[in-house]
């Protein structure tokens, strides 16, 4: 690696090598940084837990009354209230719940009495499968498209790319979903199933064809956004001084693109990809509804509608944890790709 690449971001030419600490110290720094980020993540989750607990507590209606219905006698409501532990002051309930979460016990559903985790786990698995497939499809596709469009900016390919991503990004998810269903499933071709129902105990991967349309629908929302990020970052990188320098040196264009420009353009795209993936945890309500896919998003909406508080809180915590984890991954990848950050 040349000095020029190592000091990619600064417009001025650096003379001589920057000061580098010894390797062992650098590793120690990295470790401390990672631990610090983890701790920050835990603190964030704690904050989210408190906020969601208070917010749900402020929801109108007495939960026990809501569960038993208006025909219930005051005695029945009081009995259920005390049995669910709703009489205790909020701090006590909060600490009790946090204590449970710390050891992995999310409690029981108000409605069915079943363990919250037992109910959520299969739906979380379904959502993770969908996320993984979407990630495998979307991220490489976005990068490929973004790079391709950036190679000849303002040319015909770029124009077509820009127009089509604009159209796709402005179409709501359910419109894209319904169009795809009509195209492949019900009206024009009949090659793909219209719903992706998952029988209890089985995995969605056992019916791979049924996952094609949901993933395509998801891709139609994610790829326009990500690929535009990649394209913008690539254009930015391709316009910078070190690339000009590399070209002047006579390096082949492919090397310039892949070895030099891309590494620096990746950072915003990595952040964008991480955010997109994290969002998928709880944000796929439309797709889950349209394709009857039992995932976490529809579980979240259902639990709100039914005021099933333990399930609601557990799902929110999972989503928050997902954001923390994906942001951490994004930061680690960013550091991996940007060497200067390692030594700062």
């Amino acid at each position, binding site marked *: 690696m040349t000095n020029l690449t190592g000091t990619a971001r600064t417009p001025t030419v650096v003379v001589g090598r920057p000061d580098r600490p010894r390797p062992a110290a650098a590793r120690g720094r990295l470790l401390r940084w990672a631990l610090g980020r983890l701790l920050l993540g835990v603190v964030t989750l704690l904050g989210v837990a408190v906020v969601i607990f208070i917010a749900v507590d402020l929801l109108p209606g007495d939960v026990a009354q809501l569960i038993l219905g208006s025909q219930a006698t005051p005695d029945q409501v009081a009995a259920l209230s005390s049995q669910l532990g709703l009489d205790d002051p909020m701090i006590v309930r909060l600490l009790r719940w946090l204590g449970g979460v710390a050891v992995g016990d999310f409690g029981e559903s108000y409605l069915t009495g079943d363990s919250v985790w037992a109910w959520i786990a299969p739906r979380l698995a379904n959502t993770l499968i969908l996320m993984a497939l979407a990630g495998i499809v979307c991220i490489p596709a976005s990068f490929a498209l973004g790079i391709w469009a950036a190679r000849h900016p303002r040319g015909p390919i770029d124009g077509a790319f820009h127009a089509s991503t604009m159209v796709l990004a402005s179409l709501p998810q359910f419109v894209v979903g319904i169009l795809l269903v009509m195209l492949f499933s019900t009206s024009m071709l009949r090659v793909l199933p219209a*719903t992706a129902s998952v029988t209890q105990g089985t995995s969605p991967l056992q019916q791979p064809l049924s996952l094609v349309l949901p993933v395509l629908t998801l891709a139609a929302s994610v790829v326009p956004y990500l690929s535009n990020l990649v394209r913008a970052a690539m254009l930015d990188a391709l316009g910078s001084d070190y690339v000009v320098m590399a070209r002047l040196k006579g390096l082949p264009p492919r090397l310039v693109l892949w070895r030099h420009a891309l590494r620096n353009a990746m950072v915003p795209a990595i952040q964008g990809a991480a955010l997109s993936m994290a969002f998928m945890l709880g944000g796929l309500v439309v797709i889950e509804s349209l394709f009857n896919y039992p995932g976490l998003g529809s579980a979240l909406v259902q639990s709100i509608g039914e005021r099933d508080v333990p399930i609601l809180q557990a799902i929110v915590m999972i989503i928050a944890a997902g954001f923390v984890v994906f942001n951490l991954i994004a930061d680690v990848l960013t550091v991996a790709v940007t060497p200067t950050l390692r030594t700062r």
Partner: protein
Amino acid sequence: MNDLHLESREHRGLTRRQLLQYGGASALLLAGGSWLAGCAPGGGTSTASATVALTRGGTMAYGLIGGSAFSSMDAHTPLDPVTIQWAGMLYEQLAVLNGSFELENVLAEEFSANADATSWTVRLKSGIEFHNGKTVSADDVIASFTRVLDPANRAVGAGQVSMIESMTKLDDLTVRFDLNRPTGWFDIAVSDGTALGIVPADYDPADPVGTGPWKYKSFTAGVTGEVERFDDYHGQIALLDSITLPIISDLSAMTNALLSGQIDAVSQLSPSSAATVQSNPDLTFYDLPGGGYSAMTMRVDEGDLADPLVRQALQVGVDRQAIVDSAYNGYAQVGNDLYALYDPLYASDLVRERDVDQARSLLKQAGKSDLNVTITVSELTPGSVAAAQVFAQSATEFGATVQVDEVDVATLLGANYLQWPFSQIVQPAARYTTAVSALDAPTASSNATHWDDDEYTSLWETVSSATDDATRTQCAADMQQIMFERGGYIIPAFPDTLFASSSKLGGWPTVARSGLTVTRTMNEVGYIG
């Protein structure tokens, strides 16, 4: 503490009562009516079952919508469209209201009452078997009703048969019901709806056993289930070998599954997808007028709506045809604010003609020319919110401002349930006496309008205890006249049931005014040979 814990578990198993009752009511609402031929060119035309030869054998996937994670197979808590479907397939009652909305004996051979209708005797048919081979006897009937009346079971039908004081076994096939109030319509009380199935004396909902044409095979709440033919059924033995009942949470997803061939029939269609289904040659579309409805309820005991002139103004001024056309795409019959559409007692002579000028003058008379009310609604059934919005729009024509406050179902049926000044309820097709006892009688459990009228109540007592048709008809007519003049309901439409099946299946009912006929007659459905 342990006992309380267990008890509350049971309670929780039967919770969301109103929430799901409305889901159930909506299923009944959307599943009643007589059969009009499916009519688009190129679309599947439905033929009368009498002229089509059906083969025995095969299976079908029948899509259901609704239900929840704790839907159970309990015969006495059919709360949502899923459990109502299952209850109608696995279990049977002493009698039912058939497709033409007439009383039809199923397990009972004969109903007879004493002179003053304080005691009814029911004789059972002999030789009817449960799914486990046991023969139905008087003990099972008594055990079933005892179970329904036990408050711990929170049975849906408990209010409907609350007049039962005690039951006596006269012989192996005969039960005498002694009532705590004279009830001339006891036979209807035990037949209306689907929540009074007869189960064995040792019934356990975890192992559902009934007398219906279908036997329980499997069920996963919120996901799917399967039934198979009961070969020793006492009536017409089912043509299909089995039926799977997948549950799809979204109406358009279910329609798509039907269009792509993933399922063979659906229990509900939204009015907006009717055209797509009708134009598909592989599907047969059914439009069945029915007696279920969504009513706007005005509290008569407080607020601006307590003045009967104001209520009349709204009832006279609402544009019913617009609601039929906009909210239900034309797939509905116009309503005139009276329920029990297909009951012989229904006062079909009482019709509201829309009169905007009269509405305006009524409001002026009441001193409320600038009336401003808020109606609280939720999408309890497809079209509920749209109906309220069309109503609000039509109200501007006579100077009233109606604000539509849409809330989620849990809020509507939550703490303020039955307390909203202006809201809505969904009701299944029911006979007049059952409807009054649930809605407007002193013992009513769903009195959303807080109706309490002495003249009405005394007429009701006469109707309820009458044993002759003439008295009953006359008093019911008077009661409906009172309702028409000063009641709190706006019933603008009776939506049709819309459903569809693959063109390869035939035998669906020709007349289905009760929301339950389709469910109960699946034994007559088969593949066209």
